[in-house]
Structures are given as structure tokens and as C-alpha cells.
């Protein structure tokens, strides 16, 4: 396999880390295989996106211009990608494991007779035979599975926050190939009629530098107010385990783990979270995990950089106070200089 196609599905107008991760993963595997990386953008975005693709290493950008793709609709997007592939003939097609990416991957792969893997965390190419080893967590993150793909096409959804973003090179040349779309015969069988954002104005979990996260151990929704205050002091945002979301204590959009958000903060403060493996896979990208749990045997301590065994009810007020004092002192010394 030699030809790698990165497929971007914009959600809004900004070029996010999600896009950078897909391009970075595609470029790396193309380099390993001694092949070339191309890119395509499903949706209507600013033309500067083409240059962004080039600066992350795409030598070709397949450009589609169609009113029908102005907002996401899976039948149309999948048909468009099929038509792009009929021009690109890519061996390896990479998409993000976002809601839209995960919706397109299986239908697209099935239609073109490709093999497919979701939630991939690692790709390794062997230039001698062009094969690719795909790594994917299984059993709720308790094990990793390695799959060997000897020939393409293979369609892969990359897990978000599992790819170290590359640095963009400056302006680079790339070949823009216009792909004419024929979507007249494609029936749009679903329609998004309403978008309900749970955007609280806070930093997105995926981009947060600090996350204060709560689990079943918090015992109810009330404590999340304290976590929110603490997150505010730390310039971060709050998250939760599946248990807390399933109880309805916080919205499901805050869920971190196998089937929730994948995060990569500098500091992940886990409060009352036991550390089920399906949760831990969501925070594998965190730099420092700090756990506060009253059960000294909680599995979270095996993954944490440091831990406190204590009841959060008595610990949290003290911690918040100590932190406030530290902040006041620190800011005081800065302003005094």
C-alpha cells in the first residue's frame, strides 16, 4: 500500500486539532510506506483549508464543490467520498472517530468492498511489503489488538487524541484536483432538524489544559458544582465518568472514556472515579493524572502520577482553600515585582 487519503469532515469553520491529527497520522504512515498522502475535505470551508492540508504534507487535495455538501448529511457525504475514491484510488483511507466519521466509515467501506477498523490508536507501515499494522484497544482498553492489513483498500477511523499532532510546514505546493460530483441519484434519507449544543462556553474537553472530573464516588449531582468551581480556579473545565453520566448527574457530553471524549490535558484531576478501564482509555493522553479516592485499592491509583486517599467531602474544601491561598500568594508576588 502506498497511497494514503486523509478525509476531513469539518464541524464548523475552524481548522481543529481533529483535522491536524488525521493529516498527521496520514502523513506519517505514507512516509513509512514510502508513499504519498492526499487529502479531501467533505463540506464547504474556506479555501485556505487546502493550503493547510498541503502544509501538513498532502501532495494532492481532491476538491469537491457541491451545494449538496454544504452541511453534513450522511448519504450525500458517503456518496461523495465514493466518487472521490474512484478518482483517488487510495489504499489507505483515514477518517476521524467523530460522530460523523464513525457514521460514514462502515457504510463507505462496505460499499467499496474495503476492510475497515474503527477507533485505531496506532498505525505502523512496513515498506518492504507495503503492509500496515493497525493497533486498536479491545476489551474496554484492557488489551490491545494488532491487525495486519496486507492490501487495500482499508478504511480507518483514527481515535481522537491518540495522534501526536505534527507541526505544519510553511507554504507548500500541492496539486488541487477537482472531482466533479454526481449526487443527483443519491437520496438523502436522514435530515438533521435541530442542533442542541451543550456548549457551556467553557473550554472544550478535548482542548482543555486542566480537567476536573467526577465519578460515581461523588454520590450525586450536587458535588459537580464544587468541581466546576475548582475547575474555574484552575482555568479548566469539568468532565465525568460514564457512571456519573448514566446516573443523569451531568450531561452525556461530559463523558470521558471508551465511548465518550478522549482527552489530553496537562492535568487530569479524577475525583471519586474508580478507574474502570473503559474510563482510563479516554485519558491515556493526559500528562499528569491525579486521583482522589477514599478507596486505596481503586484501580485509578495504578495509572495516576499521584494520589490522595481521602473522602472528597472533607478533602475538597481544604484543597480548594489551599489552592486559593497559593493562587493569591503567587499572583501577589507577581504583581509586587
Amino acid at each position, binding site marked *: 500500500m502506498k497511497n494514503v487519503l486523509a478525509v476531513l469532515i469539518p464541524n464548523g469553520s475552524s481548522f481543529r486539532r481533529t483535522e491536524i491529527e488525521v493529516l498527521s497520522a496520514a502523513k506519517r504512515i505514507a512516509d513509512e510506506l514510502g508513499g504519498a498522502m492526499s487529502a479531501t475535505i467533505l463540506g464547504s470551508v474556506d479555501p485556505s483549508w487546502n493550503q493547510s492540508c498541503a502544509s501538513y504534507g498532502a501532495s494532492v487535495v481532491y476538491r469537491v464543490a457541491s451545494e449538496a455538501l454544504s452541511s453534513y448529511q450522511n448519504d450525500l457525504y458517503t456518496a461523495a467520498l465514493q466518487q472521490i475514491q474512484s478518482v483517488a484510488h487510495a489504499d489507505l483511507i483515514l477518517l476521524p472517530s467523530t460522530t460523523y466519521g464513525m457514521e460514514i466509515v*462502515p457504510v463507505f467501506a462496505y460499499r467499496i468492498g474495503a476492510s475497515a477498523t474503527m477507533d485505531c490508536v496506532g498505525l505502523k507501515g512496513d515498506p518492504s511489503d507495503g503492509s500496515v499494522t493497525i493497533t486498536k484497544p479491545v476489551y*474496554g482498553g484492557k488489551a*490491545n489488538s494488532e491487525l495486519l492489513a496486507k492490501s487495500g483498500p482499508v478504511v480507518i477511523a483514527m481515535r481522537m487524541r491518540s495522534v501526536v499532532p505534527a507541526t505544519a510546514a510553511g507554504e507548500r505546493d500541492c496539486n488541487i484536483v477537482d472531482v466533479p460530483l454526481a449526487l443527483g441519484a443519491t437520496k438523502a434519507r436522514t435530515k438533521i432538524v435541530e442542533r442542541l449544543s451543550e456548549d457551556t462556553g467553557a473550554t472544550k474537553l478535548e482542548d482543555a489544559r486542566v480537567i476536573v472530573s467526577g465519578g460515581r464516588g461523588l454520590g450525586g449531582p450536587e458535588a459537580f458544582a464544587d468541581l466546576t468551581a475548582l475547575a474555574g480556579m484552575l482555568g479548566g473545565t469539568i468532565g465525568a465518568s460514564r457512571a456519573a453520566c448514566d446516573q443523569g448527574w451531568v450531561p*452525556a457530553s461530559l463523558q470521558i472514556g471508551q465511548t465518550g471524549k478522549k482527552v489530553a490535558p496537562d492535568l487530569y484531576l479524577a475525583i471519586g472515579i474508580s478507574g474502570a478501564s473503559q474510563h482510563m482509555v479516554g485519558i491515556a493522553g493526559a500528562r499528569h493524572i491525579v486521583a482522589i479516592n477514599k478507596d486505596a485499592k481503586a484501580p485509578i491509583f495504578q495509572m495516576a502520577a*499521584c494520589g490522595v486517599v481521602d473522602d472528597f467531602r472533607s478533602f475538597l474544601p481544604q484543597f480548594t482553600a489551599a489552592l486559593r491561598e497559593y493562587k493569591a500568594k503567587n499572583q501577589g508576588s507577581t504583581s509586587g515585582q
Partner: protein
Amino acid sequence: MHVVVCIKQILDPELPPADFRLDSKAEQAAAASAAQVISIFDENALEVALQARDNAGGGKITAISIGQPSAIDALRKALSMRVDEAYLLPQDNYPQLDAQATARILAAAVRKLDPVDVVLCGREAGDWHGGLVAGFLAAELDRAYTSLVASCTIERDKLRLRRQTEDGWEIVESATPAVISVTNDGGNLPRIPKVKDNMLAFRKQIPAWQADALGVNAQGVEGANGALEKKGLYIPKVERNCEMIDGENSTEKAQRLVNKLAALQVI
């Protein structure tokens, strides 16, 4: 209204990591002491179907499962949750069962059960987390597909779906017939069967539909994923030494943790 729910029986994923082992050939998890359960998201799918029927004031729900004879227990549980009918699609019929084959066999069963308004699958199995079968099934049946659905209302000739996105929720209207994949949500926690319903479920027949009955060529059903060679399965090593912050009381521990975080330069 006819709803089909596809369920899979798996080893209980709640087994703690400390007790998790691979089998001797390192091909799959060792069964050991883990119980066999309905895959978590498939239970959410059952709940979504049951709520849709409750809201519609009637209709029929059929559960199907590709599995070993033990999968009868999973189907029995679905019946005790008050699904109307259940069918086992014996896995032993199929020597090569990749995700495409799974979708083709399920599709054959759905066609046999047609007219079906909507087929529900869990978003991914709780063991291999493949996440492909629902989409493959939609492609094979050429029906509308919506993923990561938390709730479903069946209207006259369409579905109204609430589905999860990175930023919150979308309300999606889908034509019928349709296939949807279901994700977990506070609103679709699986109900606990009543004792009376457990008893009734034990009296129900769970027919097995063999490959012949489905019109599936058991030898030739494998798809492209069969070409992905299983190269390895391993338990990743976690080598973190957790520094425990000690103290006489909460105040002391809190102060020490602040000092530690300051040293790490994260506050």
C-alpha cells in the same frame, strides 16, 4: 410497527482489570470467572426499542442474536425485558465470521422478518469494540442509517432520533425503514425485568434459524475484514508509580497536593 434489535452475548466487561487474562493462545479473553452478559450497548438498544413501543402505544419487537447456544440466555433476558419474539442465529454455522459476514447474516434475518421499520444495534460490542456491524447492516440492506442514537420516537412514516455529537445533541429525522446504532445515555438505562416476566420468558420458544433457513451461503459469507490478519493481542503494560500524598488530616493532604501540583507546574 416492527422493531428488530440485534444483540450479542459477551464476557462481562465489568470484570476488573486485575482479574483480566488472555487465553493460552492469546487470541481472546480467557472466560475464567467472568459471566456471559448482553453487550452493554445492546441492552441500551433494547431499552430504546421498548421505550419507542411504549410511546407508540404498541408494536412488535424482535430480538436476534448470532451466537453460541449460550446466547439463548441473552435472548431469554431480552424476552424477560418484554421483547415479543427472539431468534438465535447459530454461530457454528459460519466458519469465518468477520464484521461483514455478521452484517450479512443479520440482514438475511431482517429480510425474513420484514416488514421491519427499524433495526437497532448497540454502537459497538463491549468486547471487541468493532463498531462496524450497524453501518455494514445499513449498507447491506440499503436503508437509512443514523449512529450514536440515545432515543427514538416512531412517527407515522419516519423516526425522530436524538443522537450524540461532540458538542451535544442533534435531532435527526430518518426515513423508514432504517438502521440505527445506539449509545448509552441516562435516558436509556436498561430496565430490570420483573419476576413475573422472567417466568413468562422461560416458557417462550426461542427458535434457531440455521444458515439454510436464512438462505445464507455459510461458506461464502466472509467479507473484506476477513483479510485483516490477527497479528497479536496483548495486555498493555502500565508502569506508573503513583506517589501517594499522605498527611494527618485532609488539611495537610490538601496542602501537600497543592505543593506537588505547583512543583509539576500545572497550577
